[in-house]
Structures are given as structure tokens and as C-alpha cells.
């Protein structure tokens, strides 16, 4: 077992299944989906094996596999997993069978659909595992095509617009990153695309700044960070249920992952000097996303904006530049995937029945379908970070870390929890409470299949909420090393540092001065919504 190349297997299985389905006759829907389910379960099994083989407490890359691919250009096929990517890989593999099960009754062009799903699975797993920058880039862009197909072919009314917007927006970011990668290869003198080689490069401050910005283009768009987020609501609303789930659960994590994997270790000086800006953008994302979510009439769009808000927390945690925040950031990525994925699944079940996404069309669902209502409530509570569920175990460390870095940012971001309660509970109340009216009349409760899709997620939500220790044990060592590496650059440098050990009393001088744009945003955000009761 020790010599089995687990990581390659992890990639190969979904890729092979995709090819297999591609050659199957398109009418054979049942065999196709069974093959898809089988393949995704096998992938999950391999992921479990990876989890088991992972040695807790070791910060570096494990289970590495390396094969020279194009040695003349310094490109190799290199895979590896560490504390940051392990959980994300597990999350992806976890969602694959669930997503196949959710799409069980997809009959229209089923073959293409499942091929796209499997291909996405392989590409997403690859992105988290790749340790060669060209390999990473190839897989990063490879993810776009199946997603584009999923949105563009199986999506809603505006699908073409949404699909093209998604594709082009993300592609542009990716291209800028490619330029940066090539620069690293050529001008920085690396002559190799290997991750560790590039990590060891000595770059000047200006170089780091521009390269950071180029990588930021790619990852910032993926997160999505304000103001590069407008592709997300359209993509989510127009995508089919399963597409939204994958998008929310996995694709959005690549942004946060990218920052932790590349931006921080490669460009530490740039990271430190730009950290206040990033924190500012994170805070804006949290508050802005929540405020705009409140105004949405379409439930999927509301959840999309809530994603923008929640992923703002991930950005905060990553750029707080302390262990607590960064570890919280990784765990929060997993948590967000679980809760937002579950939300989209549940909304998808509703949509399957009524083809209606407008919140105002529903009332009293809870009375008609208690199981659905109950699961939705638990998921909403997880999303708004109720302690006892998983959301809190990620958000609180992030907020703690952010406060330790820049107290004002921490305070502003904490206000986000009020807003989250407002928009989620408003939507829940409007749709699930009240007399039974509108599209809620005649709704059938969740079928066993649908419960089977959501139940594992809910179980994980509760389990992680009560006992997130195992997750953190795997994340902490890697994050510790990463943060130390970045912060070490700051000592001796003239730029403002983030300090965990200070005594940041509220109102007293913060270790880092927030620049005016970020500061003024925070000020204006500070006096909004104390208790917003939205009665429509």
C-alpha cells in the first residue's frame, strides 16, 4: 500500500471515468450515472486513504509524486499534499458522490453532464495537489471548460451570458497569473516551474509587488474579492443545482487556497505591505456582500452574495498573518463549502419541484415540509456561524486573528455576523414561516434520495462544530510554518508588521494603520444596521 501513487490515483479515477462515460452510448443513462457514482465513490475511497496516510504534525508536503514531464522547459508532473490542501482535497472528494446523487434524475444530455462532472472533479483535485506551476496553471484553466459547459448548456434562462462572463473573467485573471509565472521562470532566473524552486527565489520588493498583483488577479477573482465578484451571482443563479454546488463548495476555495499556497510564501514582503489593503477588501466583502444579499429577491442570488460575504472572512484570516487567523481561514473554507453547498442543494430540491426561485412566492414551507425546513434551518444556522455548528469554528479564530492584526478590521468584520443573521433569517422567515401560501402549497417533503444527499453534510456540520480538533491538528503545523516564514521577513524590514503578542486595547493605536480608502469604508460600515428588522 505504501508505494501506491495515491495522489495520481486520486486524479486518474475521475479522469478515467470521464473518458469511460464519454465512450458510452448517450441513451444508456442508467449505466452512465451508475458508472459516475461508482467512480466518485472510488475517488472518495482513495481520498480517505490519503487522509489515513497523512501524517499529522508534519508541516511539509507528503505523499509526493514526481515525474519529469517536459524537462527541457523545467516542467514536471509533481503532486503533493500538506495541511492546507489535505482538507480541501477531502472536501472535493466528499462532494463528488453527493453531487452525482443529487443529479441522479438528470436525463437531458446526461452523458455530457456526467462527463463534465467527472472532468471537473479531476481538475479540481489536481489544482489542489499540483506542485508544479505549469501543471497548476493547466488544471486551473482546465476547470473552466466543464464549468462553462455546465452553466452554458444545462443552465437557466440567462445561461449564455452567465457562462461567458464566468469564463472570460476567470480566464483573464488566469492569464495575468501566467504572465507572472513565466516571469518567475525567466527573469527571476529560476528556469524551472517547480513549486519549491520558485518559493526559494529572492525577489526584489517591486518584483514581488507586481507579481503579487498578477496572482491576485487570478485568485482575487476566484474568491471572489470585491470588486471582482460580479460574475458570481450570475454564475450561481444560472447554473444548474449541481453546478452551483460544485462552484460554491470547491471552485471558490481555489482563490483562498491560491493565496495561502502561492502569494504568501512567494511574495512575503508584498504580502506584508499589502496586507492592510487585503484586510480592507475582506472587510468590505463581508459587509458589502451581506448588505447586498439583504436586497435580493432570488434565493439563489441571495446565497451567492452570502458566499461573497463569507469568503471575505477567508481573506481576512489569510491576511491577518497570524496562526489563528490562517488556520481558521483553511477550516472556514471547508465549512463554507459544506454549508453553502448544502444550501444550494436544498434550494435545488425546491427548484426541482416548483421552478421558482423568487423568495416572495413562498410562505409557510415549514408547515408543509418539516424535514426540508428543519435541514434548511440547521444549514442557515451553520452559515451564520452559530456556535455548536461548524461555521463558528472557522469564523471565530478568523475574527480573533483579524482583531489581533488590525483591531478595527476585526470589529467591522464581526458586525458581519449581525448582518448574516438578518438576511438569512429574513429569507427563512419569509419562505418557511407564516401561513401556507404561494408555491408552498402542495409541496412534497424531501425524498429519501434527497435526504441522503444532504444528511451527510449536516452530520459533518454538527460534528465539525462540536469537534473540529482533527481538522485543526492537520492544518496547524503547515500554517504555523507558513506564517512564521512570512512574518520573519517583516522583522528587520521597515514595513508595518502584524503582531500577535501586543495588547491591542480597542481605540488605542493599532499595529497597522489602515489606509484611508479601507478606513473610510469601515467607518461608514460601522454605523449601519445595528438591528435591522426587515419586514416586507
Amino acid at each position, binding site marked *: 500500500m505504501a508505494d501506491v501513487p495515491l495522489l495520481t490515483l486520486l486524479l486518474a479515477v475521475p479522469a478515467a471515468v470521464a473518458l469511460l462515460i464519454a465512450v458510452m452510448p448517450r441513451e444508456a443513462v442508467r449505466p452512465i450515472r451508475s458508472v459516475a457514482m461508482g467512480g466518485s465513490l472510488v475517488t472518495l475511497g482513495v481520498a480517505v486513504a490519503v487522509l489515513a496516510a497523512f501524517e499529522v504534525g508534519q508541516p511539509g508536503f507528503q505523499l509526493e509524486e514526481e515525474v519529469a514531464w517536459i524537462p527541457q522547459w523545467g516542467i514536471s508532473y509533481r503532486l503533493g499534499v500538506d495541511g492546507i490542501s489535505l482538507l480541501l482535497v477531502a472536501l472535493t472528494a466528499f462532494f463528488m458522490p453527493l453531487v452525482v446523487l443529487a443529479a441522479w434524475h438528470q436525463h437531458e444530455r446526461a452523458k455530457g453532464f456526467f462527463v463534465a462532472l467527472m472532468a471537473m472533479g479531476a481538475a479540481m483535485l489536481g489544482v489542489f495537489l499540483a506542485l508544479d506551476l505549469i501543471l497548476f496553471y493547466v488544471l486551473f484553466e482546465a476547470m473552466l471548460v466543464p464549468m462553462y459547459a455546465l452553466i452554458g448548456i444545462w443552465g437557466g434562462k440567462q445561461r449564455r451570458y452567465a457562462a461567458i462572463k464566468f469564463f*472570460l473573467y476567470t480566464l483573464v485573471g488566469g492569464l495575468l497569473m501566467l504572465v507572472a509565472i513565466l516571469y518567475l521562470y525567466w527573469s527571476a532566473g529560476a528556469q524551472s516551474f517547480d513549486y519549491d524552486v520558485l518559493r526559494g527565489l529572492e525577489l526584489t520588493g517591486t518584483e514581488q509587488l507586481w507579481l503579487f498583483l498578477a496572482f491576485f488577479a487570478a485568485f482575487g477573482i476566484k474568491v471572489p474579492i470585491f470588486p471582482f465578484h460580479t460574475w458570481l451571482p450570475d454564475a450561481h443563479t444560472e447554473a444548474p443545482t449541481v453546478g452551483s454546488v460544485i462552484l460554491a463548495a470547491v471552485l471558490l476555495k481555489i482563490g483562498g487556497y491560491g493565496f495561502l499556497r502561492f502569494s504568501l510564501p512567494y511574495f512575503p514582503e508584498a504580502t506584508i505591505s499589502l496586507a492592510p489593503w487585503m484586510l480592507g477588501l475582506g472587510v468590505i466583502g463581508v459587509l*458589502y456582500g451581506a*448588505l447586498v444579499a439583504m*436586497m435580493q429577491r432570488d434565493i439563489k442570488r441571495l446565497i451567492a452574495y452570502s458566499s461573497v460575504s463569507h469568503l471575505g472572512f477567508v481573506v481576512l484570516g489569510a491576511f491577518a498573518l497570524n496562526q489563528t487567523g490562517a488556520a481558521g481561514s483553511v477550516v472556514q473554507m471547508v465549512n463554507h463549502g459544506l454549508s453553502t453547498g448544502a444550501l444550494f442543494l436544498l434550494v435545488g430540491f425546491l427548484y426541482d419541484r416548483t421552478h421558482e426561485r423568487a423568495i416572495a412566492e413562498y410562505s409557510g414551507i415549514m408547515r408543509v415540509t418539516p424535514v426540508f425546513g428543519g435541514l434548511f434551518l440547521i444549514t442557515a444556522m451553520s452559515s451564520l456561524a*452559530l456556535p455548536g455548528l461548524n461555521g463558528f469554528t472557522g469564523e471565530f479564530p478568523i475574527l480573533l*486573528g483579524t*482583531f489581533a492584526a488590525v483591531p478595527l478590521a476585526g470589529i467591522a468584520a464581526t458586525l458581519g455576523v449581525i448582518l448574516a443573521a438578518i438576511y438569512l433569517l429574513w429569507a427563512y422567515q419569509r419562505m418557511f414561516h407564516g401561513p401556507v401560501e404561494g408555491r408552498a402549497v402542495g409541496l412534497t417533503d424531501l425524498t429519501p434520495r434527497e435526504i441522503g444527499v444532504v444528511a451527510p453534510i449536516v452530520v459533518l456540520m454538527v460534528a465539525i462544530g462540536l469537534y473540529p480538533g482533527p481538522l485543526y491538528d492537520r492544518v496547524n503545523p503547515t500554517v504555523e510554518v507558513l506564517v512564521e516564514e512570512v512574518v520573519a521577513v517583516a522583522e528587520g524590514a521597515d514595513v508595518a508588521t502584524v503582531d500577535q503578542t501586543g*495588547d491591542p486595547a480597542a481605540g488605542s493605536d493599532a499595529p497597522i494603520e489602515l489606509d484611508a480608502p479601507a478606513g473610510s469604508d469601515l467607518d461608514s460600515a460601522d454605523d449601519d444596521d445595528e*438591528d435591522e428588522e426587515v419586514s416586507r
Partner: protein
Amino acid sequence: MTGLAEGAAVVAPAGSPAAWAWLMAVVPLVSAAVLLLVGRRLGRAAPWVAILSAGFSLTLAVWAAVWLAGREAAERTVVHTVATWLPAGELEVDWAVLVDPLAVAMSLLVTGVGLLIHVYSLGYMEHDSDIPRFFAYLNLFLGSMLVLVLGESLLTLFVGWELVGLCSYLLIGFWFDERPNASAAKKAFVINRVGDVGFMIAMFLLFGAIGSLSLVEVLPAAEGLAGGTLVAVGLLLLLGATGKSAQIPLFVWLPDAMAGPTPVSALIHAATMVTAGVYLIARMSPLYVQIPEIGLVVAAVGAATALVAALIAVAQNDIKRVLAYSTVSQLGYMFMAVGVGAYSAGIFHLLTHGFFKALLFLAAGSVMHAMADRGDIREMGGLLRDLPITGGTAAIGTLAIAGFPLTAGFFSKEEILAAVADTAGGEVILAIGLVVALLTAFYMARWFALVFLGPRRFEELDHPPHPHESPLSMTLPLVLLAVASLGGGVLNLDPETGVLAGWLAPSVVAFEQTAAIIGHGLLEAIAIVLALVGLAAGVLLFRAGPREVSASAAPAVRFAQDAFRVDELYRAAIITPGHWLAVGLTWFDERGIDGAVNGAGRATSGLATAGARLQTGFVRSYALAVLIGTVLLIAGLVGVWMAAGDGIVLTGGW
């Protein structure tokens, strides 16, 4: 004092109740989950599952109390770690319980009153279709409150803190088919969250300064904290407490929360959840004792709230709303107590208030039950005859809350007023406290008179109800609580030598006298007179029925009835601007940012279209382009050559 503040925590011996204390919280939580999942199938057995869990927790609490009492005072602070919870980087929090006198006192209150209310609900909710869900939520609440009270870390306390917020959301909105109920539930949750933000930021500050959130480490370190940190933490925790305990400015959710079933009101809003704020401040007494000026702020908030709420209560006509505002007002008293440093007095009032307020709410529920769920006290009257037990126990409750001599409320209120009188700068607060005492007696007497005395106005209604006494499951708790309201005073007959004061010594800092505004004897006499006057006035004025409001007083009464228009104020000052902000941002998002994105797309298309115009399809225009291009190219080359060399030389002739 040898307790938490000195770092005298001991690890729980194996097999001791402290080592099992976590089950107090976990068992009700598990039974809640069970009831939610399979409750329907259990049918009639469902409530009994919940009652048994509550009973189990009570038994465990009693056992823990007895065991703790048997230990030396110095060894009464016991911790037990159940499991690790959150090892996130530098933050390390465990699932751990702290069993000390304060925690045990609170758990006894929570489990004791909780069990009584579970039993009461058997009768009250008999005809409801959703019984398993109700009892599941009751259990969930019990478990959450115990997590709050037993938590060894501020963060585990916070878990319980938010979970009880969730439970109040679930229970206030229990009858969610009515929109107002659902709306009230959401309001409660959101406003609580505002307070929670304060709590969280306080935790951030404490963690930043101390490096841990564990009470065992935080409380001893409180002495060494910087002044700024102390003040900030003190105020922020106060903010959190005002959210949970419905003080100014975050009290607006409590009256609306009466939308829930009455046992819920009794449990959550009278006896337990709202007291979490008081508990928090008492628990953090080593910190507050360092900042007495902030303590005065706490007391001032309590006093102001007590006054405002009492004034509002005088003008209310709904049987539960009077009690709701009364709760807010009495919580104000508790804040006054912990504000001036009389922590055990605050806890004492917390306990006695738990008894008589739960009693009053359950009695109100009994009355509503008899009145076919009507709640307007102007339409009641004379019910003492039909509901003797309810009326009798309600009378005892009224006397207790008014501070009639020798009732539990008398002793606890006296102790608070005496403490305020012994605090420097407490003059205004004391005056307010006395005025509120008068008002409390008055409006409670009015309440009692309009409901139980005088002409039976309900007989003139269209479909008059036929009131009858409630079943034993409902009246038994009433009687038990009445006994407690009468005899509860023995818990702390004297502020210095009382049982409770001694018991709580390891957990909270003792009160220190800093002034002598008025002698205790005189104070007691004044308070008794005020209580008697208030009671008499209320009964005499209202025993014949509701009174007409004079024209000159009408605006004031209306203002009080509308709860000083605080809701409207919040709507105008915060909600509406917030709404417009959100509208503006959404517009900006769609037109501005997305507009830029779409604009970029349109610009590219535009450029492409413009560029495409070069492809005319005309051969001749292509030819022209070739010509011009060639000329330019040659001119360029020639120019380069001429600049570089000596020019073009034409040699020779033919």
C-alpha cells in the same frame, strides 16, 4: 476569598459529580435531538422523555451542590475537561466544565425551575399538535443554558450564550404560522446578535492581553490588565449583557417575545435566559471590581432601564406584556446590584426573581388558558373566584415582586438598595431604585386587581369564556413556586452573614462599602412604606375595573403604551438608513461594478465592430491600403537610411 480570582481551581476527582457535571448539559441536548428526529413516533411518551431528562439534570445539580457543600471553601472551584474543542493556532479552547458555587447555584435555578415548567407544559400544551417539537426545544434550551452556566471558558460560555439565543428564536416562533410570531423570533435573535458582537470583541481583547479565554486563567489575570483594556472589556461585556438581559438599549425584543407560548415566557424570559447577562457580569466580578466607575455605568444602565420599563408597564393592557416589562425592570435591579459590586445581592435577586416571575408568568398562562387564550386584562376581572389556586399564588407573586415584608422579593430588593446606598456616587441610582419600587408595587397591584378582582367584565364579551381552574400539572408548579417566593428569603437573610453570600464567596468578589448615603434601617422603612403605598394604590384604584385616562395625561399614557416609541426610533435611526444603504449598494453593484464589467465587454465588442469596418470587401480599398502601406514603409526606410548614412548617391551619368 479563595476562589477563581486567586487561581484556586482544582481538577475534579474522578467519579465526583464535578466529573459528571457535563452530563447535566449533554443529556437534555441529546434528548432534544432524539425528540426532534423521532418525536412524532413517541406520541404521548414524548413529553416524558423531556421531563426525565430535566429531572436527571436537576438530580445531578443537586448532587453536585451537596458534594460541593461538603468540601472546604478553598476547594470549591473545580474544573473538569471533557474533550478538546478548538485548537486553532494560538487559540486553544476545550470542552470543560467549571463547577463552583456560582455555577451550581445557577444550575439549580435553571434545572429546578426548568423542570417545573416542563411539568407545567404537559397541561398547557396538551391540545397542541406539535408537542414533541415543543419539548425538544425546551430540552434544547435547558441544555444550552447549562452549557452557558457551566462553561469553563468564556468561549464555551459563549456557545451556550448563542445557543439559548437560538432556542429563544425557535420557541418564540413556535407557532410560526402567524407572521407576527415569526417576526418577533427573528427580532429577538438579531438584537441578541448585536449584543453578541460586543461579547466577541471583549473576548478578542482579553485573548490579546492574556492569551487565553479560559476563566481559570482570565480571572486571576484581571488584576494585571491595562486600564484601557479593562474599561473596554467591561463596556463590551455590558453591551453583550444588555442584549441577553434586555436592558437599554437592546431591550426591545423582550416584549415582542411574548408571542411565544407562556411556558416559554416563563422559562426563558423570566427565570433563566435573560439572567445570563447578570450571570456574566457576576462571573467577571474580578474584572469589574477593578473598574468601579464602569460598575457605576452598569448600575446606571440598570437603573435607567428599570425606570423606563416600570413606566411602560404601568400603561400596558396585555397580561403578559405587563410582566414582560416588569422583567426588564427587575433585571435593571440586578444590574444595579452587580454594578455597585454587590454581586451576591444581584444573584440573590436573580434567584428570587426567578421564583416569583416564573410564578407570575405561569399564573398568567393559567388565566389565559381559562380565558380561551385572551390576554387583555381590561376584559378580565373577578377571576379569583374561579381560579382560586391561580389567583392565590398570583397574589403571593405580586406581593413578592412588590417587596412586601418577609417575602423573598423583600429581602433581595432590600439588599440591593442597601448596597446602592453604600456606594459612592449612588445617590441618583438609589432614588431611581426607590421610585421603581413604588411603581413596581403599583403596576403589579393594578395587574392583579384588573385580572382577579372586581366585576367580571369578560361576561359582557360576545363569546364569553367559562373559566375554570387549571389541571394539577399546571397548578402544582404554581404552588411550589409560591412557596419559594414566600420562603426564598431564607437564602440570604443578611447581606454579610446570609447563606447565599457565604456560598458564593469563592466565586464572586465581596461587596465593599464606599459610602453611607442613608442608614439601612431608614432605607428599609422607606422601602416598606413605598411597597405598601404602591400596592394599596394599585388595588384601590383598579379593583373596580380599568380607569379612564384624563385628557391631560392621555399623551403621556399613550407614549408609555407605545413603549416610549423606542422601536420607532430604531426604525428611523438605524433600520431605514440601513435599508437605504443596502439599496444604494445593490444599485451600485448592479449598475456600477457590473456595469463596468459589462461595459468592458461592450467596449471590446465595439472595438471589434469598428475594426471590422476595415474589411470592406472592396478590392480597390484593399489596393489603396497596400499602396499607402508600401509608400509609408519605403519612406520610413529611406528616412532611416538617410539618417544613418550619407544619403543616396547617384553616381555618374550615362
